[in-house]
């Protein structure tokens, strides 16, 4: 019998927790969460949310509990193919996650329930759309009481969205250092004066921050009868409006225009597409990670073959454009994420265990690194053997493009860097470094260019 293992990040809510048995992810509903869980199911809210793909569906009581004396039910939620975090999302992804949370709360109120937390980590992306994943976040609605998760919603969603749209889109990285949400006083201090002209921001962020500070030393107390259901729906409507007013235009960055301005001739581009498809067909991966994907042109070749594909890039504009295309075309196999490979997402939270690092969420069946290696080697000043070792850790299959030193893009990156200050960067060093970890299965030079596309297979580890 396989011993169950409690999920590291699932300990805050006494109503239940996640655990694993083998590869199966399960959630135990404790006796203390019984009434709320039953109401979720019996009220019709569960069905309403699942039918509209707003909540992750689950099956009941197919497995034994982790902690029998505490247990009421064990549920097996549908698995999310890849867990991602808000500091890896584009502006549009965070905005859609915020709208989803508000819609879930609105429907909950209509069914006599309410969200007892509004954590951004309760949302994941599935089939190109956000979905609520915490089945135990619902509690029976107590008429007259304000929303207990109002502050958390503002810290987890509204504050980062306002900062991203009005100050700098890169401020979503504040979510990485503040896993309990961006403190409202910090957001209020960082936002420009014109944010006061938006009544929603003035109220939900600035006034909210001021009241938090002035009452920080007083315990939170109930207020029976002071907050009608209509006021609750009004609050949700007000939050929805302020979320919808947040806008950020993804353009103007260097890489967002790359697909249009890249240096391939039509013939070379066609050849590169053909080779990538051929390599994908040959290897038949179940999952693909496209690193340095830009707006996802080559990721879409993999996704088009029905392969769940992650499309990573370090440029927020590229990730946003990629996401916009997914939402407008209804694509389901692609998930664009923000990632700086030179400093990938770390493990974080309590005991460094609540949020997984980028590497912990691997490996992928196949990694694509197209027109990426020169950025790591030259801009990142990373030695080629180090890069090869990193890819060895990521995946058994690798489609990688070598961009030669005389390529205009490489010359541009080299700029005024002196040769003595750089690690070796040439085709021989590249091949030698990668051959320590991989067998080269196929390599082909692209026409009208010195670039070479390789299909590599990881050597057996002994």
């Amino acid at each position, binding site marked *: 019998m396989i011993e169950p293992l409690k999920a590291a990040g699932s300990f*805050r*809510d*006494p109503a239940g927790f996640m655990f694993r048995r083998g590869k199966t992810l399960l959630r135990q509903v404790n006796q203390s969460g019984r009434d709320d869980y039953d109401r979720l199911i019996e009220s019709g809210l569960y069905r309403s949310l699942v039918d509209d793909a707003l909540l992750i569906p689950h099956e009941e009581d197919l497995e034994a509990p982790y902690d029998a004396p505490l247990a009421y039910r064990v549920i097996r939620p549908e698995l999310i193919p890849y867990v991602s975090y808000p500091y890896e999302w584009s502006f549009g992804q965070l905005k859609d996650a915020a709208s989803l949370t508000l819609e879930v709360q609105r429907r909950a109120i209509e069914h006599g329930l309410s969200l*007892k*937390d509004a954590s951004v980590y309760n949302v994941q992306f599935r089939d190109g759309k956000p979905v609520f994943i915490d089945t135990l976040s619902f*509690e029976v609605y107590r008429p007259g*009481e*304000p*929303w*207990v*998760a*109002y*502050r*958390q919603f*503002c810290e987890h969603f509204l504050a980062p969205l306002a900062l991203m749209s009005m100050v700098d889109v890169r401020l979503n990285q504040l979510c990485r250092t503040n896993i309990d949400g961006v403190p409202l006083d910090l957001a*209020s*201090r960082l936002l420009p*004066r014109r944010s*006061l002209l938006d009544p929603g921001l*003035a*109220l939900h962020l*600035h*006034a*909210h*921050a*001021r*009241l*938090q*500070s*002035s*009452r*920080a030393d*007083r*315990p*939170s*107390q*109930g*207020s*029976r009868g*002071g*907050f*009608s259901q*209509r*006021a*609750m*729906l*009004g*609050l949700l*409507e*007000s939050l929805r409006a302020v979320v919808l007013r947040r806008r950020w235009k993804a353009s103007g960055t260097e890489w967002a225009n790359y697909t249009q301005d890249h240096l391939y001739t039509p013939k070379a581009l066609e050849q590169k597409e053909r080779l990538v498809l051929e390599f994908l067909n040959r290897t038949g991966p179940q999952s693909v990670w496209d690193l340095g994907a830009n707006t996802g042109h080559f990721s879409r070749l993999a996704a088009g073959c029905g392969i769940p594909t992650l499309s990573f890039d370090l440029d927020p504009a590229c990730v946003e454009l990629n996401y916009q295309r997914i939402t407008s075309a209804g694509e389901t196999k692609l998930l664009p994420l923000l990632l700086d490979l030179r400093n990938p997402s770390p493990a974080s939270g309590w005991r460094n265990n609540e949020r997984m690092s980028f590497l912990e969420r691997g490996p992928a069946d196949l990694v694509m690194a197209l027109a990426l290696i020169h950025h790591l080697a030259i801009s990142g000043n990373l030695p080629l053997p180090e890069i090869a070792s990193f890819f060895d850790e990521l995946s058994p299959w690798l489609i990688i493009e070598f961009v030669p030193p005389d390529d205009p893009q490489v010359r541009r990156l080299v700029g005024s860097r002196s040769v003595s200050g750089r690690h070796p960067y040439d085709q021989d060093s590249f091949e030698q470094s990668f051959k320590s970890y991989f067998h080269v299965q196929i390599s082909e030079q692209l026409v009208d260019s010195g670039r070479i596309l390789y299909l590599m297979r990881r050597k057996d580890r002994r």
Partner: protein
Amino acid sequence: MGYAPDILAQMTSILGVGTTDPSVLLGYLDPGSGSMVLQIMIASVLSGMFFLRSSIASIKSFALKVFSRTDQGLETR
């Protein structure tokens, strides 16, 4: 910087909002005393706005139904 008017904080102490009920909220998440107070303070405005919006939406939907019926009636004639 502290843009929010101090009057908000003063109003809460004058009104005694949020301190009238001694029942401490149960739950693992700290809702924040200021957050609860703010919601109570704006409850009537939120409620009024919601009522207004719902009323306008109902009138619009009623008008649309009436006009679409009239149009259909004209087309069938």
